[in-house]
């Protein structure tokens, strides 16, 4: 089977039409030293069955669930995805590649986005959600840029308990701007040190993640209050939205902007992406919010309809004065989360969150009894830090070889936390799994 639709004759014909003799002529504007003169180093062509064998072989090198027992969260969580979600998501009407500009053609897609915005705003206790961004880390960066636009102040405070990779994305986003980043230290209990906030008046925003990178629930209400006294906006970030099935949401605790990662809500982990960037704010700041926004309205006959709204902030109308360069969203992932949330319902969400919490507490208690130390006393959701007995590092590799990934070692990201591991337990783990983990780890 040929994959290239043009014959040599077609190509010669096209070249002569535009008045050149060789395809290489098209690339002459690229400096010679930026072009390679060698052939690309690619393996020889394969037959389809040879290629299939190769791919199978490669895929066997992956550690996949459920064959591997993975206790890793840290921003990406293993949750059961109901078949209803996967099925509805595969409907061809939804698997479309482009943003719906034309309401007369795209009512279904627009309604799906509108429902996503509604569900997310309710889950987080906020007034408005945009149609989604790429992932939690870039959502945090956009939230901070938004705070800079609103307050016209040019510095932000980030809690050092925010996911280290999120902080790196924020650094990358803010690097070309004049905005400076300062870190708030953490306490012995694993939370943001609120005492260091007093008197810090010249900042656009204070950003805190809860549960934070170490799984600890932050005291958002008190942090938000101090932040507001200082004249800054309070940005609440999250990596595990299921938390808000059990704990109070950031909106009800005084956050001005709530942002985070929605992968937990029915999206497969897929070795790191695609994710779902969630960004919500208060109604008064909606004009500073980046990204697409769908609104509900009525047509001239009074019938309900959905349409992109507040588009005047956006690049295609406002050009270089646009609120941001974000002109797209992760619609399919947003849809997955809407189906997931609608499938669970309010009660289901609360029950599932409780299950995650209870299983995590079970493991925490068992590990403690078996002699491990839980260094941070703050409450947690489905993730916590444990200090393992000396010499665990070798055992960790041994367990991994046998299909048990006992959390992630924190030493690489936080050198002070030598021999500390971040462990995540979700509903997918059984009591038997947890008991086995404790036995394996402590004997």
């Amino acid at each position, binding site marked *: 089977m040929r994959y290239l639709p043009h014959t040599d004759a077609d190509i010669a014909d096209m070249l002569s039409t535009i008045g050149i003799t060789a395809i290489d002529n098209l690339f002459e504007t690229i400096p010679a030293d930026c072009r390679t003169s060698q052939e690309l180093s690619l393996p020889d062509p394969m037959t389809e069955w040879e290629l299939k064998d190769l791919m199978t072989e490669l895929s066997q090198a992956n550690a996949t669930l459920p064959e591997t027992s993975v206790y890793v969260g840290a921003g990406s969580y293993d949750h059961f995805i109901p078949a209803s979600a996967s099925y509805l998501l595969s409907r061809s009407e939804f698997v479309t590649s482009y943003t719906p500009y034309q309401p007369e053609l795209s009512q279904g897609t627009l309604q799906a986005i509108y429902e996503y915005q509604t569900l997310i705003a309710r889950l987080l206790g906020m007034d408005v959600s945009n149609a989604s961004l790429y992932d939690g880390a870039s959502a945090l960066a956009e939230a901070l840029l938004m705070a800079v636009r609103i307050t016209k102040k040019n510095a932000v405070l980030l809690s050092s308990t925010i996911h280290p990779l999120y902080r790196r994305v924020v650094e990358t986003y803010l690097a070309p701007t004049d905005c400076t980043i300062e870190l708030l230290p953490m306490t012995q209990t694993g939370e943001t040190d609120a005492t260091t906030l007093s008197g810090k008046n010249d900042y656009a925003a204070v950003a805190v993640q809860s549960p934070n990178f170490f799984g600890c629930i932050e005291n958002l209400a008190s942090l938000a209050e101090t932040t507001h006294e200082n004249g800054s906006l309070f940005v609440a970030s999250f990596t595990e939205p299921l938390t808000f099935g059990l704990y109070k949401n950031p909106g009800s605790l005084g956050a001005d902007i709530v942002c985070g990662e929605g992968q937990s809500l029915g999206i497969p982990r897929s070795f790191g992406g695609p994710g779902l960037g969630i960004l919500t704010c208060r109604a008064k700041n909606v*004009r500073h919010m980046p990204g697409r926004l769908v609104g509900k309205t009525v047509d001239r006959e009074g019938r309900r309809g959905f349409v992109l709204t507040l588009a*005047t*902030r956006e690049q295609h*109308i*406002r050009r270089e*004065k646009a609120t941001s360069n974000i002109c797209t969203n992760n619609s399919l992932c947003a849809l997955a989360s809407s189906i997931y949330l609608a499938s669970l319902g309010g009660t289901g969400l609360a029950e599932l969150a409780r299950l995650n919490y209870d299983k995590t507490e079970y493991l925490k208690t068992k590990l403690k009894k078996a002699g491990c130390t839980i260094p941070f006393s703050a409450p947690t959701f489905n993730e916590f830090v444990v200090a393992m007995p000396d010499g665990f590092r070798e055992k960790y590799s041994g367990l991994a070889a046998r299909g048990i990934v006992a959390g992630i070692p924190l030493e690489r990201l936080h050198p002070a936390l030598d021999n500390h591991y971040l462990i995540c337990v979700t509903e997918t783990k059984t009591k038997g799994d947890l008991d086995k983990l404790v036995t394996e780890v402590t004997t």
Partner: protein
Amino acid sequence: MKEIDELILDDDVRYAEDHEWARYDGDLVRIGISDYAQDQLGDIVYVDLPEIGEEFAKGEEFGTVESVKAVSELYMPVGGKIVTVNDDLDDAPELVNTEPYDGGWIIEIKPIDPGDIDDLMDKDAYIEMLKEGA
């Protein structure tokens, strides 16, 4: 959209090239946008107002006005410090459309240089400019 001779252009205000108007009100200068500007923008849905106490130079952007189809910047026709903003526009931005010189005023400033206003166009000069642009 209105023809130039259909525009309502007040005699007692002065006009800037960016279609703002300015009018003395005691020591203060009241600022809005002209009938031409509101007509070009269409239905206005939001006016982003500056903070009281902020100071802007002549020609500096002090806010934006958003219609259903565009967002336009507002520029100071006269430099000065913001004394009052028209809070009525929060709930009724359409006042800029319906009464551009009265209820639809946007800000009131204490001018840095009271002579600035003399540099602006009177009604006739403004009409002339609009005709040249047309």
